[in-house]
């Protein structure tokens, strides 16, 4: 199992390296979202600071949504997915490895950029640690839930807006607790409760989401 995982990781990293420019796309998308929000709200620091954390959460979430379609599509098109299903390792294990790699390559660059984006939005510095914590706990859940949706839609030639329609209802609780933790901290309340709930959600989705996504892959790609 470890061998299969390391082979998959190496292959994904090589593919990523040959298309280095694509790897920065989600971060660029998040930057554009932030710029549009800032301009739409008039650019005043007084108007931006209260909503900064929510806008950043949304920017990260939308950037992740944009990258979701590429999770299994390449493998479905070149036939690797059939090999995954025939492989002697369980399908959910490969799905888990792929999803975590996808998170590392699409979500993590955006999260690294969040402190800079926060400056653009005049995010109060005291909120930054809680925001980063909630993003680090929340975005893997988004990737894992997104894997289920991406697996369901992998059989379609163009999934388009359907991916968003399927994924966003599942994303709502993560957004509520993730942005809620920051909002609680900004009002001087204890954000630990919401962060713990995110952690619990992450543990549950780490266990169940790869199984669900593997089942969905078998349904959508038989």
């Amino acid at each position, binding site marked *: 199992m470890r061998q299969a995982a390391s082979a998959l990781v190496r292959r994904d990293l090589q593919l990523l390296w040959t298309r280095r420019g694509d790897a920065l796309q989600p971060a660029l998308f998040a930057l554009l979202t932030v710029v549009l929000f800032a301009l739409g709200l008039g650019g005043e620091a007084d108007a931006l600071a209260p909503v900064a954390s929510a806008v950043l959460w949304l920017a990260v979430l939308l950037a992740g949504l944009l990258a979701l379609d590429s999770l299994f599509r390449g493998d479905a098109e070149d036939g690797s997915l059939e090999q995954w299903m025939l492989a002697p390792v369980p399908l959910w294990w490969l799905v888990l490895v792929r999803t975590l790699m996808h998170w590392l390559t699409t979500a993590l660059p955006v999260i690294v950029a969040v402190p800079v984006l926060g400056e653009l939005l005049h995010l109060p510095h005291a909120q930054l640690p809680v925001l980063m914590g909630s993003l680090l706990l929340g975005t893997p859940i988004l990737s894992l839930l997104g894997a*289920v949706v991406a697996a*369901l*839609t992998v*059989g*379609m030639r163009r*999934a388009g807006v*359907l991916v968003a*329609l*399927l994924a*966003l*209802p*599942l994303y*709502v609780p993560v957004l509520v607790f993730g942005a809620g933790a920051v909002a609680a901290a900004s009002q001087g309340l204890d954000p630990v409760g919401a962060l713990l709930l995110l952690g619990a959600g992450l543990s549950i989705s780490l266990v169940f989401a790869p199984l*669900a996504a593997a*089942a*969905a892959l078998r*349904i*959508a790609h*038989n």
Partner: protein
Amino acid sequence: MNLPPTNRPAPNGLIRWFHQLGSPPYFDRFAARWAPWAHLLALLTMGIGLYGALFQVPADYQQGDSFRILYIHVPAAWMSMAIFALMGVYAAIALVWRIKLCEILAMACAPTGAAFTLVTLATGSIWGKPMWGTWWDWDPRLTTELILLFLYLGVMGLYAAIDDRRDAARAAGFLAIVGVALLPVIRWSVVWWNSLHQGQTIRLFGESSMDPSMVWPLLWMIVGTKLWFAGSLLNRARADNLRRETGKDWVAKLAGATP
């Protein structure tokens, strides 16, 4: 010729009927026969319920006449969740035993369920404007019900987007099974969080915190919406069933084609 004795008893009437119902031509006849009756009975019971709700039941001491919208809101809300649960059950049966008719029935649940969810949200917000002073509030109960609507739309969208009907039904059914996790959250959302939405006031078992004189039209409405759903389910499933069986002999015969 002597046939070897079998250990299996002959299936009794009910089990045989159940197996027969799984066959497309038999289901078509069954649905064509019973759907009009379900709709007729539904109109009748909902008529009685609405008459009672509008003319018989006394006005509320606090809310006056505006509480009467409850007789549509509550049955629709219950149906929105019950239909989703039923869709999950059908989808699970379809995924495990690969019964074609269950795929059809699961997918036939979605549009009616989405309609009931929309009715729930609309009547709730019409009532909310005079009572809460707002059309909408991001309250847990309201938000989760809205997510339920999106899930229904997602199931319908996924079913429509995949070309192969059986693959589409299985993928959409899988989403429905995943979505069932939302139902307990909706049910207990007024308990877990501070909510603008009132808590549970009507109980089927035990004492309701609603006056008995106000309850009886609600029961008629609950039965009526169930019957209406049964009728629409049969009609929709029948249409989908016929569409899938296009080209089979029995459909051609039904359409009056001469061989």
